[in-house]
């Protein structure tokens, strides 16, 4: 990803924020992949795939996404004034 606002070397904090944006972009893709995992479940004799296990798996992933998303949104929300990166293009 090319640096959009001119400089190649940015302040450490700005750099960190940009990587957080990357993370925020990747999170839904990761979430989608994890949510699609149950498709491949077939189960076996000892540990058959059951609805109960499916419920636990899906809800665990879901909770994880919510926690990570909450952390990311805290980092990404500009605090009064510093809006430069908020306005960054995709």
């Amino acid at each position: 990803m090319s640096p959009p606002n001119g400089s190649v070397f940015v302040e450490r904090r700005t750099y960190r924020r940009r990587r957080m944006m990357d993370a925020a972009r990747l999170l839904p893709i990761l979430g989608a992949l994890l949510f699609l995992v149950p498709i491949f479940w077939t189960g076996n004799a000892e540990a058959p795939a059951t609805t109960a296990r499916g419920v636990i798996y899906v809800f665990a992933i879901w909770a994880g996404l919510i926690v990570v998303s909450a952390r990311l949104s805290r980092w990404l929300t500009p605090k009064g004034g510093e809006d430069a990166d908020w306005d960054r293009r995709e």
Partner: protein
Amino acid sequence: MIGFNILVLVCLAYVAVLFTVAFAAEKRAERGEVGWLRSPIVYTLSLSIYCTAWTFYGAVGYAVRSGLEFVTIYLGPTLVMVGWWWVVRKLVRIGRSQRITSIADLISSRYGKSNLLGVLVTLLAVIGTTPYIALQLQSVALSFSVFSGDEAAVWDAGNLKNTALLVAAGLAVFTILFGTRRLDANERHHGVVTAIALEAVVKLVALLAVGIFVVWGVAGGAGDIVARIDASGVAEWNLAGGRWTTLIFLSAAAFLCLPRMFQVMVVENADERHVAVASWAFPLYLFLMSLFVIPIAVVGLDVLPGGNPDLYVLTVPLSLGQDNLAMLSFLGGFSSATSMVIVAAIALSTMVSNHIVMPIWLNLRRGGATVSGDVRNVVLLSRRVSIGAVLALGYLYFKLSGGGAALAAIGLISFAGVAQVLPSLLGGLFWRGATRAGAALGLTIGFAIWAYTLFLPSFGDTFVMSAAMLQDGPFGIAWLRPRALFGFDGLDPVVHAVFWSMVLNTGAFLLGSVFSFPEPLERLQGAQFVNVFEHSPNAPGWSRGLAEAEDLLIMSQRILGASEAQALFRGAAERQGKGGYLPDTTPDFIELLERELAGSVGAATAHAMIGQIVGGSVVSVEDLMAVADETAQIMEVSSRLKTQSEELSRTAGQLRDANEKLTALSIQKDAFLSQISHELRTPMTSIRAFSEILMSGPMTEEEQTKFSKIIHDEAIRLTRLLDDLLDLSVLENGQVTLNWQTADLHDVLERAVTSTVSMAGDRGLEIIRDPSVERVALVTDSDRLAQVFINLIANARKYCTAQNPILRIVVSDGGAGVNVDFIDNGSGIPRPSQSVIFEKFSRLSDKSQAGGAGLGLAICREIMVKLGGSVTYLPGQGGAAFRVALPRAQARAAQ
């Protein structure tokens, strides 16, 4: 058991609370105390209209029938919100900067304010949403019927429909009251949003309460529930991969495209930062809403094995004697249904009024926007009528379809319908090449396929599609079978329809965009949408300031209301530095006004209305392009002028230089004359003085000889000076005749050295040469060349300041010719003097009076020029150094 009357009372009380809350919020907002009314929490809660009665009641039934699959319709929105940085953030920014009023307005605005697309999306939304509204009415009516189970005698199908009618009428009243108070959709509906936020809390609390009761009241906690799940009818793992994936995609798409979701997510958004909070808070809400669905389903199967699983949320607490819990649950379902219907009606009515009613009205009274009538009232009226019409349609649909299972399936069908907007929406947000033609093509094809493969077949064997047609295809054409298009047999109907409609929709959109050419306005809007984070929010649109500010004010008052319009105009006038209410109709101002109006009547209509006033016609972007062309021409002319003026100033500079040179030459001439007079005068003075002495009287022989010799010497000096002057003048005037002949450099040098030695005075000068390299053949005037060499050697002899003067004569190859350097070991010539030594009468010092008049080097230079070479001073050689450059023999001979 709660009596039906109590239920109605509670219900009415709840509605009264909602009205009060909405009313209070409106009042508060009017006083400007928005505060918590517009907090991220309220924004998140308002998003919860995604969870309708279909999901509130239906999710449990869905879980009973298909196990875990029910969760997919929550996972899609979760992914969309978690990925807010991609899409939702951009949508909200565009919605705010372009004053978007609905999803139809967004599509229309993106593709060049095209009303065709606005109408298409509006139709799609109405067709997709009406059955959904019917579904909500059915849910509420059914939940009423549950409570009146003991009064079955009076509670028949007719009553069910009457309840639905009453609910629909009540909703219409609420929506009209709070949804059309203001015209500017961007001013937001504080009352409505606050009320649906409250309803969001009620339905969450209700479902959680039922869930907690079921898990810890009926079952023995979490562990017991897991055991019960394993023992129940839903234990079996029967996940269908195709459906699972399709439904996650479908719910994500619908979440973005549903008119009501767009309304709360984009139009009602007050601050972009709220999206950041909603990105995790809304998934959390969905998480909590679905957490207890499976437990309720499992316990419901235990408690009421024969009951309708779609109503377990209500019937389980009721059958276990938890009347209050059941009442809460009922209110939750009621909230889900009503909030969805209210927002959907607002969103649809905005779309219908802006994209269908207003254009028709404007067309009917072309040129009439300024003449008569109050546009504001027309718009509000059309919205109110639209709200009534939408709800009436929903009720009619419910009545005609007769409720039941056919209606329950409509949720996903509706999702698939509105999802057809997705390619045009995302394409418009991220791809500048997306065009109106592509979007129209994609939408039409997607809509047609959806209707053919999913919507129409959902009516079953009716007048729309016969059983035979469903079975064998139209006219027996097998590959056109609605449920197995192109021979794709055996797919789930929803998966099949979503697959084909989305693939063909996207394909048509892409192909149409690639092979069509966008109009200028489309390209401008496209750039503004795609690069919304870089662009200033202003789109160019109006270039002529012909519109009368007063006309515009009159029109704006009718749309925005008198005080708002006046405030807007006054602010604009102030920014322009003017007093009063009428600003100059600059393009900037007209753009601002158009955007403000767009907030009320939609982009396309606002564009058309202003177009009627501004010069009587729309200033099209074609006009703008023509203006731009003119500008380009003017720029070209001015750049030509600039070139010419640059040329002129260059010529002037050259003239100035020439003038300076002439002045310098004149000064030089004067100096030359005064110099020469001086040079002539000195010997003349001595000659005169000594001849006077000779004439004055007798003197000794010795004295006579001495004085005569002085006179003679001075005369010789004078002659030499005159000779030199003559020589120089001849050379300078080009009248010299050169005696071209072949000569050997060595011979010429030898001659020069010999002659200078012969006239050597008291100062000895050692001359170092390398005869081996001097054998160079030249075609030149050897006498003149020797004169130059003699002059240079004589100079060295005269001016070299070293104790033991040494002159090196170095002959070297100089590329095109031969270089002969004369380098002595004296102190050299100071840098400032290097440029003047070749001038006439320039002598660096008077140290050696024996020398000539300072014409030697000037003569040398002239000779060398005539001989086709040059003599230059060579700095940095340790002493005075002169380089004589000579052309080679062959070069000379060739001439």
